[in-house]
C-alpha cells in the first residue's frame, strides 16, 4: 500500500519537475523582449480602437509611438492634446499642441430644399447607391441620406434626422477620428478645427455644378457666385470649380460672408444671435437656415439631456 503511494508521489513530482524544466527552457528560448513602455503608453490611450490615428488599434499605435523618434507625425485625435501629452511624458519626448478638430457636414440639402425626382429602392447602403447613380435628387454631389457615416461612427456622435434626411453630428461627442469621412462615398464630411469657443463658419455644400443646374437642384447650394470671396478681407475664401471654400485657419469669424451669400450656403455655428437686424429680404433667407439650425441645436440639446 505504502509503496503505491510513494511511487505515485515520486512519479507525479518528477513529471512536474520535468515539465517545469521544459517550460523554463522554452520560455528562455522563445523569449520575446517587449518594451515595457508600450504597455504604459497603451494605458494612457483611450482604448477606443477606432483607427482614427491611422493604425489598426491602440496597441499598434502605442508601438509606433515607442518606436518613433519624435511624436510630431503621430496623433490620437480621440484623446487629443491631453492624451498626447501623457504619452509624451511616458516616453520623455516632446509634443506640440494641435488644434482640436471636429467633423462638419457639408451638405444642407434637406428635403424641403432639394426635391426628389426619382426613388431609390435598392440596398440601403450609400456606396451602392453612389455607384448606381447620382442620387434621388438632381444634385449628384449631395448627401444620399442612407446613413453609412452614422453606422461608421464608433462614438455615437451621429444620428439621422428623419425630417431633413441628413446626418447630424453631435459636436460634444465627436472625437474627429475620421471614420465618417472615410465612410462617405460623396466626400461630404470634413474635419475642421473646432475654433475659438467652438465658433465655426463653413460652406455647407460640396456641389461643383454650375450655377444654373445647381440652383435648380437645390435652393441652398453654393453656386460659386463669388460674393463671399469679394466680401472677405482676410483672403480666407477661395473659389475653385464653382465652389467656395473657407480656410479655417485664415478665417477670423467676422461673419460678413454669411450675410452676403444669396443661397444661405454658408453656415455659422455656435454664434450668439445677431445684434443688428437684417433687412427683410435677408431675414427670410436667414430664417430658413436658422430654423434648421435651431431645430438641430434643440435636438442636440435634448440628446445631451
Amino acid at each position, binding site marked *: 500500500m505504502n509503496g503505491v503511494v510513494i511511487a505515485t508521489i515520486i512519479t507525479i513530482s518528477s513529471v512536474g519537475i520535468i515539465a517545469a524544466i521544459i517550460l523554463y527552457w522554452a520560455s528562455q528560448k522563445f523569449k520575446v523582449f517587449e518594451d515595457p513602455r508600450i504597455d504604459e503608453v497603451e494605458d494612457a490611450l483611450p482604448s477606443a480602437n477606432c483607427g482614427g490615428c491611422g493604425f489598426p488599434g491602440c496597441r499598434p499605435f502605442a508601438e509606433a509611438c515607442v518606436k518613433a523618434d519624435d511624436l510630431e507625425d503621430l496623433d490620437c485625435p480621440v484623446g487629443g492634446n491631453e492624451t498626447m501629452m501623457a504619452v509624451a511624458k511616458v516616453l520623455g519626448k516632446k509634443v506640440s499642441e494641435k488644434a482640436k478638430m471636429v467633423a462638419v457636414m457639408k451638405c444642407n440639402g434637406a428635403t424641403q430644399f432639394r426635391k426628389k425626382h426619382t426613388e431609390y*429602392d435598392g*440596398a440601403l447602403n450609400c*456606396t*451602392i447607391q453612389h455607384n448606381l447613380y*447620382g442620387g434621388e435628387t438632381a444634385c449628384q454631389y449631395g448627401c444620399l441620406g442612407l446613413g453609412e457615416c452614422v453606422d461608421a461612427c464608433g462614438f455615437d456622435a451621429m444620428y439621422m434626422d428623419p425630417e431633413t434626411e441628413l446626418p447630424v453630428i453631435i459636436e460634444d461627442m465627436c472625437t474627429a477620428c475620421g471614420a465618417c469621412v472615410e465612410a462617405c462615398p460623396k466626400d461630404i464630411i470634413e474635419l475642421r478645427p473646432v475654433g475659438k469657443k467652438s465658433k465655426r463658419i463653413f460652406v455647407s455644400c460640396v456641389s461643383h*455644378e454650375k450655377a444654373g*443646374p445647381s440652383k435648380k437642384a437645390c435652393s441652398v447650394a453654393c453656386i460659386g457666385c463669388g460674393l463671399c470671396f469679394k466680401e472677405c478681407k482676410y483672403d480666407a475664401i477661395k473659389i475653385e470649380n464653382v465652389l467656395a471654400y473657407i480656410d479655417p485657419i485664415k478665417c477670423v469669424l467676422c461673419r460678413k460672408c454669411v450675410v452676403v451669400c444669396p443661397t444661405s450656403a454658408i453656415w455659422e455655428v455656435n454664434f450668439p444671435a445677431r445684434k443688428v437686424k437684417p433687412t427683410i429680404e435677408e431675414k427670410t433667407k436667414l430664417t430658413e437656415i436658422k430654423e434648421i439650425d435651431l431645430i438641430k441645436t434643440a435636438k442636440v440639446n435634448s440628446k445631451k439631456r
Partner: protein
Amino acid sequence: MLKTFAKGGIHPPENKFSADKKVERLPIPKKVSVPVSQHIGAPSKVIVKKGDIVKTGQLIAEQSGFVSANIHSPVSGKVFKIDLVTDTSGYRHQAIIINVEGDEWDEKIDRSEELKKDFDLTSEEIIKKIQEAGIVGLGGATFPSHIKLMPPKGMKSEVLIINGVECEPYLTSDHRLMLEKAEEMLVGIKILMKALNVKKAIIGIENNKEDAIEHINSFLKDYSGVEVVPLKVQYPQGGEKQLIKSVINREVPSGELPISVGAVVHNVGTAYAVYEAVQKNKPLFERVVTITGKSLKNPANYLVRFGTPISNLIDVAGGLPEDTGKIIGGGPMMGKALNTTEVPVAKGTSGILILPKEESKRREVKPCIRCAKCIEVCPMGLEPYLLMTLAEKAMHERSEKEDVMDCIECGSCSYTCPSDRPLLDYIRLGKIQVGAMRRAKSMK
C-alpha cells in the same frame, strides 16, 4: 443534345416581343448630345468647339489613351455647346451637343446599300480602320474592339467566336441584325478572321432564334471556315467566358483573358459595324436599339443615331405607359435603371426596357435561409451569399480570397434568391472594395 456552359445558369421568361419587328430608321432628332465617354476606358478628347460645323461621320472626339475609342458625329449641323449631360451612368458627364441641320454625310462614306464582299487589306490595315471608326463591343460591355484584335505578346488566337446569343430577356436587336444583315455580318466576320489571322470562326446562337440560325446557315457555303453552333437557351450564355465554354468547351482560368485559351469573342453587332467600317468607310455612329416593355404599345427595333434622347424612342413606340415603374438601359438582368428620359443613346445601349410598377418594385429583404440556390446558379462557381456577407462586413481580404473579382455581375443570384436579398448589389460593393484595396497596395 444542345451545347451549353457547365456551371449554373437560369432561364428567365424570354418576353421577346419585338422579335418579328423589322429594324426601322428612327427620325433624326433636332438636337443630339453625344457623350464623350461611351466606352470602357479613358473618355475621348473633344476636338471640336462651339460653333463648328460638323458632318455626319466626322471625327469629333479622339481616342485619349490605350483603352479608349474615337467618337464621330452622328448628325450634321452646328456644335451648340460642350456641356455636362446625364448619361447612362446616372451622373452628369461631358457631352457634345449638336444642333441638327439636314443630314450631310462625310464624303468618304459609301452610302450605297449594295453588298461589298471582297477586301484586300492586311491585318494591320484592318485593325487601323476599326480603330479609326471607333468601334467598341456592341454587346453592351463597350470594350474598344481594336484592342481585342491585338493579342498580347506570346499569345496566339486560334478561333474567333461570334456572340449571337442575346441571352438577355426582352432584347432583340442582335436577332434582327442577324436576320436582316446576315451577309454583311458574315463579310465582317471574314474581315475579323483576317485581322486575327485565324482559319475558323464559330457563331454561337441560342436555339430560341431558329430562324436566324437557318438564315445564316443558308449563306455559309460562300464563307469557308465559318460555322454556326445552336446553343441551349440558358442565361448568361452571352457572357464571354460562358460562351467560350459552350462553344469550344474550354474554360478561361480565373483572372485571365479569353485569349489565354486561344479564343477571341466579338458580338454580331460588332461584326456588322466592322463590315461597315472596312468596306463602306462608315464610322460607328448609329446602332440597332430595341425599345420594349410589357405595357408598351409598339415594342420595336430602331436604327438610332447616338446622342438621340431615349424620350424620342419612347414616343415612337407609343409613349410612356401609365404604369411605368422603371426605365432600364439594357436588358432586365444586367441593364441599369435610368433616372431621366433625356439620357442619350450611346454605343452600349442595346435596348430600352420599360418595366411596369409591380415588376420594378424591390421586395422586402428577408434573412438568408442557407438554401444555396445562389451557389447552384452562379455561372462562375462562386458563393454569392458569402460574398454578400463579406462585403457587408467590409472583409476585403477574405472577399479577394473568395474570388469576388471573378463575378461577371450577371444577376442570376439575385434573381433566384427566395429571400429577395440584394446579393449582386453587395457583390458589386465587394468588387469596388477589393479594387480599391488592390490599387492602394500597388501604390505602396
